[in-house]
């Protein structure tokens, strides 16, 4: 293990986080709220520590897959602990476990909250929660890779461990340029959304919170009813942008490069859009008794579908009251999640597509045992290792899910609550159903359950294995 290099990278993570903390501090200044000072203090303290660490680059910069996973897993833990400090110290969230839960929920773009009344929060606190969505959405490492002076090609391991999807590749030959392109697309889209929200007459602070929360597919709001009380126009803007941020960013890269053919050849994107449209139509007809007009049904269905499939977790209505068919569709979408290479969570559409193709092949091989077939994706044959990786991932996901469910069951809530609470965290959605529904929160769980859910959120965001690897004793042996 290249410990020196791991510490160096964590130093960078701390510096980036300290800089990000200046924004809530600034907000405190604008609204003349004293909580901003806590952010300034924490930022200054950790900026010094971080700068001391990164002052000297380690001589050996060679890292391998193992360091890539370790550094990403560890950094996210540090990121969360430091991020929780100002919320805890300022007293806005008096329990450290709760503050940590809230921060992890922010960075992993989950959006599950333990706050019983979000409207009591100060402006700096609200901004920090939502800003963490934006940072966690595209990823801290993708950002660091775009600014850090690094030599060598092995840093692809960092990006691979953090970015979602079974095949993480580069857009252009240089990793640094790839990272820059991703962040440019991300920032530009966020800005466009912010401007559109302003045009739709949303207040500036609300527009900032909503646009960064949507971009990271996070879902922290500033009102108890999330987006429910805003105008129709705003609801539609949020609906469309949530769906857009759930699309594989390769799609945008191809479009910018003028390569439309290549962009629409991405099967995942086509399936993603198809799944969204079908779900909207079914749900819209299923809930037509609840709302006055068919238009309203479609608006609500579209918003909720877009919100849950991308793992954002904003809500315009309490879908907990919807009929079972709609709820089942929504929960299924929560498992599936958005596209790989997007800011969304879940198992990812591409894995579903590969899974179904593998099943189809397997069925065919039972009927005609001697037939030879390869699984293709986007017009290219898929490597057996990738298919195996997908199957193992889905298996691991299910295992983590069951173990978490078992531990949560001790809280005494009903099955639906426990079940959806785990999905909501593991898929980085935010709200679930019943007690943890859009109108509820996670405050009622025991500390142990909260830690399990914290682990689930991190595992979900980093796609299980970086977190599981940290738990493996083999990882930490000097020679194995």
């Amino acid at each position, binding site marked *: 293990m290249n410990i020196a290099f791991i510490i160096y990278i964590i130093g960078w993570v701390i510096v980036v986080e300290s800089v990000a903390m200046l924004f809530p501090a600034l907000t405190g200044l604008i609204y003349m709220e004293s909580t901003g000072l806590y952010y300034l203090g924490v930022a200054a303290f950790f900026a010094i520590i971080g700068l001391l660490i990164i002052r000297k680059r380690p001589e050996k910069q060679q890292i391998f*897959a193992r360091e890539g996973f370790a550094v990403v897993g560890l950094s996210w833990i540090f990121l969360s602990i430091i991020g929780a400090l100002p919320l805890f110290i300022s007293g806005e969230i008096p329990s450290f476990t709760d503050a940590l839960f809230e921060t992890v929920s922010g960075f992993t773009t989950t959006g599950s909250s333990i706050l019983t009344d979000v409207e009591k929060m100060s402006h700096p606190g609200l901004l920090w929660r939502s800003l963490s969505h934006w940072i966690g959405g595209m990823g801290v490492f993708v950002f660091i890779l775009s600014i850090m002076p690094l030599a060598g*090609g092995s840093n*692809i391991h960092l990006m691979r461990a953090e970015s979602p999807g079974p095949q993480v*590749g580069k857009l252009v*030959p*240089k990793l640094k340029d790839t990272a820059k392109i991703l962040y440019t697309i991300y920032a530009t889209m966020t800005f466009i959304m912010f401007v559109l929200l302003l045009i739709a007459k949303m207040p500036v602070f609300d527009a900032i919170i909503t646009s960064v929360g949507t971009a990271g597919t996070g879902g922290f709001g500033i009102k108890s009813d999330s987006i429910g009380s805003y105008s129709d126009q705003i609801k539609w803007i949020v609906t469309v942008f949530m769906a857009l941020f759930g699309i594989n960013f390769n799609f945008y890269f191809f479009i910018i490069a003028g390569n439309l053919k290549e962009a629409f050849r991405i099967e995942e994107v086509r399936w993603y859009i198809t799944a969204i449209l079908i779900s909207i139509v079914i749900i819209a007809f299923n809930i037509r008794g609840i709302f006055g007009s068919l238009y309203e049904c479609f608006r609500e269905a579209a918003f909720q579908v877009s919100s849950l499939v991308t793992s954002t977790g904003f809500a315009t209505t309490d879908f907990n009251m919807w009929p079972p068919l709609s709820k089942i569709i929504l929960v299924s979408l929560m498992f599936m999640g958005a596209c790989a290479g997007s800011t969304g969570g879940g198992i990812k559409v591409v894995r579903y597509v590969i899974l179904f193709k593998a099943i189809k092949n397997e069925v065919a091989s039972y009927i005609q045992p001697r037939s030879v077939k390869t699984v293709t994706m986007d017009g290219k044959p898929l490597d057996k290792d990738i298919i195996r990786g997908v199957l193992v991932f889905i298996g691991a996901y299910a295992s983590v899910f069951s173990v978490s469910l078992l531990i949560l069951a001790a809280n005494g809530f009903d099955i639906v609550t426990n079940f959806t609470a785990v999905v909501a965290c593991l898929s980085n959605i935010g709200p679930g159903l019943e007690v943890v529904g859009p109108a509820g929160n996670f405050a009622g769980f025991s500390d142990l359950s909260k830690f399990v859910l914290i682990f689930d959120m991190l595992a979900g965001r980093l796609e299980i294995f970086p977190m599981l690897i940290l738990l493996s004793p083999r990882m930490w042996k000097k020679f194995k």
Partner: protein
Amino acid sequence: MKIIVVGCGKVGISIIEQLSLEKHDVTVIDFKADIVTDISNRFDVMGYVGNGASAATLAEAGASETELLIAVTDSDEINLLCCLFAKKAGIKSTIARVRDPRYSEEVSFIKEELGLSLILNPDYDAAREIARLMRFPSADKIDTFAKGRVELLKFEVLEGSLLEGKSLIEIGKIVSTEVLICAVSRGDEVIIPNGVFRLEKGDMINVIASSQAARVFCKKIGIETHQVKDCIIAGGGRTAFYLAQQLLLSGVDVKIIESDRARCESLAEQLPKATVICGDATNQEILLEEGIEQAEGFVSLTGMDEGNMFLSLYAKKCSKAKVVTKLNYFASNDIVKNFNLGSIITPKNISADLVVSYARARQNSIDYGESNVETLYKIVDNKVEALEFGISKNSPVAGVPILQLKLKPDILLGCIIRGKKMLIVNGQSVINEGDTVIVITTRKGLKDIRDILA
């Protein structure tokens, strides 16, 4: 600069490594998925799995914006086809590896007809370098600059040598020849020396000189300089063939030991003047029988690094011959440096250096409108670069005595080439427009002569 490399063999990887170190945007194409994955994990490059000699694959790899394509698959024909398609796809410069001796007569014809910028033949280039060493055996390594007018020679300072314990100023007084000691490696350290630097036993010194001056210099410090009279080549591959061809031309008796009879016959047919021995070179008796103890030159060119190492160690032990060892895989191995293997030649690195020097020249013509770096050599285990710069009009270094130029540390002006003359630089020298200047430096990535100024 955007570069596509097709083929990830030994030479391909060596080229990819160098080019990605030079911060080029490198895209790699190979039809083996696992190799491409491995390469994109090791270097900051983009990988594509596919056939490089396919217009569709090239288009996908972004051929339309690419400046340079290097085809180094193991098939000459695919390489040429690749370059042909690349030209059609709009890539301006193409480099192909063509190594089959059957094409070697027609290299310039192929180059011209297909519009190639460069043809790589690692075996031939390695043979040329070995032949140079055999003509001047006291040097450990010889490079040439400025179309052969300037040589860069590497020597070891032996115990009891005239050079031991002397400062460079004192040496200058003793030899009073136009030579310049431009880089010294001592242990793992590389030093660009100044006048008061003292040489020690075991230092490897790099000397810039014209070919005549180099010989005078060696005589004055008491080193034999005559060409070897005979040479044993162990292994009869392509490099051996090219080497024998060149040595025979300069009148060296050549003896090739090769174990495969068919290959022996074909060598004997192509090289009637050489003695071809069919036998296993790793067999000491055969070596003794063929007179290794009296040989003046010994080159181990078998396909196995380990075999070559042992052959050379044996040759060093039982003879006074000039020994050259070909190493492919262990070339950068630190342990190998501790062995007494004579001069080490690594064909893939020779090719990679050629490509890098070409890429630099291209990059320069993009950045500055006209090419500025003419050749680039990596010397002393790639730790030092020797670059050749053409001096254009209004260059800030022209017309000023060298003493008055404020140079960055670790930069040495080696020599000036004016017309056909080569001048070793001293403080009073003045660079003129139209000169070519050789700069020695441990800094990487110099692109323009302006970069040497502080």
